[in-house]
């Protein structure tokens, strides 16, 4: 460590600054672990955190029914909350950066509307291909529609030079088109199908299985390293598009690439859980308030914050109304907004 011997005051100051951010990241991660355990412990039949820990470390120690509750119901749902929250918030963070827009989220481009339309279509038509039932076809159709919507926007944006305003405008157009199609489907749907559509739209973690968790986790595992490879370009973009271009960053290509990643992340998340859109907006903002916009910290921070908020929402969904499991999409905003407001207010006092 000869580095530290010759370190200038500026180098020392910056090192302390980075250290604080690492601490914040560690705190977020620790909070997420606690929330995950609490989520697994919460539910209709009481399961103390100690038992959850026991069951995780030594699965053989639990009796059979507890083991089934823990491993087949609680843990997949708790894990799903974590990976979906991380996916949506990471997608939102990248989206806000490349579109220079703090209001952007994965759903700005009509992704959730497209996914909802896809899911509704599968529900109403009772789609089944190759003998695969609705548990596969509904998410598959939702994902396919979300991807199709993105590809259309990509194609259109490419012809127009892929500026941020163009992308947002096409996205808003897509929201309206997809909503119209969704209403059309709902209009012709039977009462039973309509109820299923509404329930799907509210978002639920109860449908989680290990396979679904695995798929979403895989998408996250593919996209996160690609995002981290672009951290410096994305950070530079926060100083202004013209400046970033002058550093040799191919901004338009980067924007299209990020949009593709975002739609994969959000498409996978929405397909299995339904619409929990608020996470993609609030996760990045929490990370920005706590960690700033150096994307080395901002992107992982956003993913952790999103995972934490959805995990807390999952606990709230099970405990707000005793004996009733609320759809997590309803609870997300109710839990996320107070957290968000507290952060904003504490920052105000700090400066």
């Amino acid at each position, binding site marked *: 460590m000869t580095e530290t011997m010759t370190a200038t005051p500026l180098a020392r100051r910056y090192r302390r600054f980075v250290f604080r951010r690492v601490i914040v990241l560690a705190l977020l991660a620790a909070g997420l672990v606690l929330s995950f355990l609490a989520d697994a412990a919460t539910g209709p039949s009481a399961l103390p955190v100690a038992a959850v820990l026991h069951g995780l470390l030594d699965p053989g120690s639990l009796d059979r029914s507890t083991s089934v509750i823990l491993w087949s119901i609680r843990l997949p749902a708790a894990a799903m909350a974590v990976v979906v929250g991380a996916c949506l918030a990471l997608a939102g963070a990248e989206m806000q950066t490349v579109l220079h827009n703090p209001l952007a989220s994965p759903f700005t481009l009509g992704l959730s509307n497209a996914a909802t339309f896809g899911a509704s279509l599968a529900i109403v038509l009772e789609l089944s291909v190759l003998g695969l039932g609705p548990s596969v076809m509904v998410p598959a159709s939702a994902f396919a529609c979300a991807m199709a919507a993105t590809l259309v926007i990509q194609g259109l944006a490419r012809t127009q030079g892929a500026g941020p305003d163009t992308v947002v405008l096409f996205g808003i157009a897509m929201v309206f088109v997809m909503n119209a199609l969704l209403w059309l489907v709902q209009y012709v749907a039977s009462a039973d199908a309509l109820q299923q559509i509404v329930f799907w739209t509210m978002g639920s973690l109860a449908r989680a299985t290990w396979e679904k968790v695995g798929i979403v986790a895989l998408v996250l595992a593919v996209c996160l390293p690609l995002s981290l490879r672009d951290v410096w370009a994305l950070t530079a973009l926060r100083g202004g598009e013209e*400046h970033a271009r*002058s550093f040799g*960053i191919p901004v338009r290509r980067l924007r299209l690439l990020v949009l593709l990643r975002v739609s994969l992340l959000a498409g996978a998340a929405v397909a299995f859980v339904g619409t929990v859109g608020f996470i993609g907006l609030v996760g990045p903002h929490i990370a920005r308030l706590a960690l700033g916009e150096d994307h080395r910290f901002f992107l992982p921070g956003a993913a952790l914050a999103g995972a934490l908020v959805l995990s807390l929402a999952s606990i709230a969904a099970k405990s707000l109304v005793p004996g009733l499991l609320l759809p997590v999409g309803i609870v997300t905003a109710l839990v996320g907004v107070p957290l968000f407001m507290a952060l904003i207010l504490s920052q105000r006092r700090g400066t």
Partner: protein
Amino acid sequence: MTGGLTLGGLTAGYGRRRVLEGIDAGPIPPGSLVALIGCNGAGKSTLLKALAGLVAAAGAAALDSYDLLAMTPARRVRLTGYLPQTLPQGSVLVAYEAVTSALRAARPDLPAAEAERRVQAVFDRLGLEPLALRRLTELSGGQRQRIGLAQAMVRRPRLLLLDEPTSALDLRWQLNVLESVRSLADRDGCIALLAMHDINLALRFCDRTLVLGGGRLLADGPPAALDGALLRRAFGIDGRVETCSRGYRIALADRALDEGAWPDTEGNAS
């Protein structure tokens, strides 16, 4: 002569609209500070952007033994540092991160420790250390402009392209910034092209002035060659250049000419 910058028949524009027409500028030796002077719309910014690779350009632009126009953006940013006219936008990035990203995004090959040394060196050189850990949103326009300059200088380019680098600065920092650019050119032998509206600063610090008008080069020479007649052609004013008691040459604008008396109005470039 192999070193330096040579422009031959450089044309540039946006889409089908040509803004620069056949700019020729003989070899500009290493270590030169060159002022680009001209009225609004004369093509100063476009010339800088063309050399930075941000607008389509044709013709020849040779820097040392490199053909600038034929280079990929990734290679060109190793040689050029461009400061746009717009200030870095207000974000919650701290100044240190903004400058670091300008280096690391352009030079992914640099080891982190070396990148850190270079970033610290540029903060030291521009006197920006007190601002290093402040957020861009908290900085004034002039402070952000200096951060922008640090972003352009941190790659240690051979060619600095500065679009009105002192437009947001107070008197003290105008001198400070131009002195740093001057000393960088003297020490490292890099060339700096500066689009400037303040002709007196240009006369004081630069070795050479390129006067642009309507997308063409009106004059290329030492600052001493700038006189009333050239001011008239370039800006459409009655003006004069006089020597002050300290020996600096000072340009004075007396009166704007009537529209009809000055054919070279802005917009002729298109």
